[in-house]
């Protein structure tokens, strides 16, 4: 009897652990679709539109990888994950990659056995409060009730920030951004804290965005990026260089509009030629064909286009490039060379 219970528990846990195979690239190709873990709904980053089609900045990364590997940007199966379920989903093989506003940290990279392939958004944790509270600094939040998504770095940063500043707070743990928004608007918490980009995206969906202010303090570094399982370096390379291709494309002036023309024949710029496969055979090094990067760029445009279309200043979310500008424009985006 005792054994039965133990085996039952092991069986349940075994299902969670699932089958983690080392050849993700082969699996994706055989399957014909890419399983991409995204958030449960954060407008601008990953959310289904009115027609039920997933749209957003993180979604764009998934589509680019699908286009590079499978040749079809729509061959993606989007798996919504919460802050708590995302790592289990990736570790168990339920998804092939996560593009879900996930912060690159030491323990996630090492102890949790994941592989961050780069940074697609340099962010920091901020605070949002209703304007009529009259709060102008996060340090005035002594005694406040804070809504916070569980299983996130923000949960830990918050504890650090309030401890360092010697002020007290009460935490309301929340599973998804949508729930947090509802709790915050109902006044069940005074403050909502998450990555500043997430706050801007959330505020953009409010009826009266002007009634809410983002406090000036940015209390942490939150480099958000796509990640894959540790130990499958071939697949990690594919996702890493797809992201780098998008970033390089912006730097080199390759856009979704001119990519097919540039990929048609070798041009004057050797790096563009290598990127688009008209010169050399970089694609074969990562197990793909020569046009992989051209397809990835054609899927949703280069990094800058993805940014402007989904979260840029002309969208309701209205984020400036800031740290996320190319290094040539004083930002931090810096793709290693295609050589």
């Amino acid at each position, binding site marked *: 009897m005792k054994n039965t219970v133990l085996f039952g528990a092991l069986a349940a*846990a075994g299902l969670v*652990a699932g089958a983690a195979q080392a050849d993700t690239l082969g699996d994706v190709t055989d399957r014909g679709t890419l399983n991409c873990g995204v958030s449960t709904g954060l407008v601008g980053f990953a959310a289904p539109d009115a027609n039920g089609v997933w749209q957003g900045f993180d979604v764009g990364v998934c589509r680019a990888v699908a286009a590079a590997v499978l040749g079809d940007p729509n061959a993606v199966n989007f798996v919504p994950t919460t802050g708590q379920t995302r790592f289990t989903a990736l570790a168990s093989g339920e998804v092939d990659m996560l593009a879900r506003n996930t912060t690159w940290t030491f323990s996630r990279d090492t*102890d949790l056995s994941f592989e961050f392939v780069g940074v697609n958004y340099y962010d920091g944790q901020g605070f949002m409060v209703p304007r009529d509270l009259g709060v102008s600094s996060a340090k005035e939040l002594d005694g*406040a009730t804070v809504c916070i998504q569980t*299983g996130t770095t923000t*949960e830990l940063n918050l504890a650090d920030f309030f401890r360092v500043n010697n002020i007290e707070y009460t935490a*309301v743990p929340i599973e998804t951004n949508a729930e947090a928004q509802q709790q915050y608007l*109902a006044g*069940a918490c005074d403050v909502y804290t998450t990555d500043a980009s997430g706050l801007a995206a959330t505020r953009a969906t409010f009826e009266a965005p002007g009634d809410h202010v983002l406090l000036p303090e940015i209390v942490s570094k939150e480099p958000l990026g796509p990640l894959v399982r540790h130990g499958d370096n071939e697949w990690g390379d594919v996702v890493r260089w797809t992201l780098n291709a998008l970033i390089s494309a912006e730097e080199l002036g390759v856009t979704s509009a001119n990519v097919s023309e540039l990929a048609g024949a070798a041009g004057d710029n050797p790096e563009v030629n290598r990127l688009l496969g008209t010169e050399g055979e970089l694609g074969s090094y990562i197990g793909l064909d020569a046009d992989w990067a051209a397809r990835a760029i054609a899927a949703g445009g280069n990094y800058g286009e993805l940014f402007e279309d989904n979260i840029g200043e002309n969208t309701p979310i209205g984020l400036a490039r800031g740290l996320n500008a190319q290094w040539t424009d004083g930002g931090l985006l810096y793709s290693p060379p295609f050589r």
Partner: protein
Amino acid sequence: MTTMTDPPSGGFRLSQLIYDSRYRSLTIQTVAMVLIMVLAFMLVSNIQTNLQAAGKDFDFGFLDRPAGYRIDPALIEYDIVNSTHARAALVGIVNTLVVAFLGCILATVIGVFAGVLRLSKNWLISRLMSVYVEGFRNVPLLLWIVAIYAVVTEGLSPPRAFKTGDAEMWFNESVALTNRYLTIPAPVLENGSTILLAIIAICFVLVVFFRKFARKKQEATGEILPVFWISLAIMVIPALLAYFVLGRPVSLDYPELGGFNFSGGIQIGAPMMALTLALALYTGAFIAEIVRAGILAVSKGQSEAAFALGLRPGRTMNLVILPQALRVIIPPMISQFLNLTKNSSLALAVGYNDVRATLGGTTINLTGKELEGTILLGLFYLALSLLISGVFNVYNNRVKLKER
């Protein structure tokens, strides 16, 4: 003339394992055992392979690492800097136990009332109880938890409404019901309160003795004492007298509105209220049906006999029907209590930090120890359920029909 047939001589043949009823059950058991062991081996080796492939090990060392995340409410000491994941799990366990305990008590009260009232001859009351029972029994618990929580957070005012005067405190500025918590005055024990507590304890013992005495007297003489009123008097009057004689040793700490929230007093969080209430109402509906079935299971002749002896309906219920009904009621009640306890793990839906949310949620998320965390969580619920059913089985043995 008779022919003697010899028992089949010759040795043991393999086919006997299947066709000979003496060996067949042994064969089946052996095969089943082997199958189970193969399955178990496959599971364990599958887990080992996958853990290895994922670069993970199987150890419980993560429990000793500092947790670093905040838990509200923490009813035992929990320090965000130094407390370990084990401590965080313990905080969650205490929170689970609190909700399970309060929920079971509340569910029993609600269930017994609803069950008895559903048998009422009053048409309106019995129909109202039917609506309650069917409404709660037939809608998933998670929906009720979320619905009740939504009513609390959307329907009530946030604390800042109390500042602007949009909402008012009750009972002479001492109680406030906000959409975050219910805050009530907290008792503060001052000098002399130990004496007061001692007096209350002595009164309690006196009440127990008095009830024994009243029972003996009734059995000996048939005279019935007004037990309830006398017990109440013994409990209340000396305590009140002592309270004033000792110079009011217990004062109240009233909640006060600070910058964002009320401070002082006791705060009962909205998630906990919503969760406990939803669990109690949901399980109460099932208990109501169990109670009704138990009462209906007592033959009508019993109540008729009691009426014939001149017992009033209330006494008939308390002295004749319920004691017999309890024998039918207790066993299924135990499984309802187990259900309620396990259902409390839905707490995450309303952001209540039970053990599923701390050990099974944030800790797993931070440490990546899904297997270990899930096993521990399962073992905890298993142990708790066995404990509850053990305790109630002891009680059941006391009330069940004694056959001599």
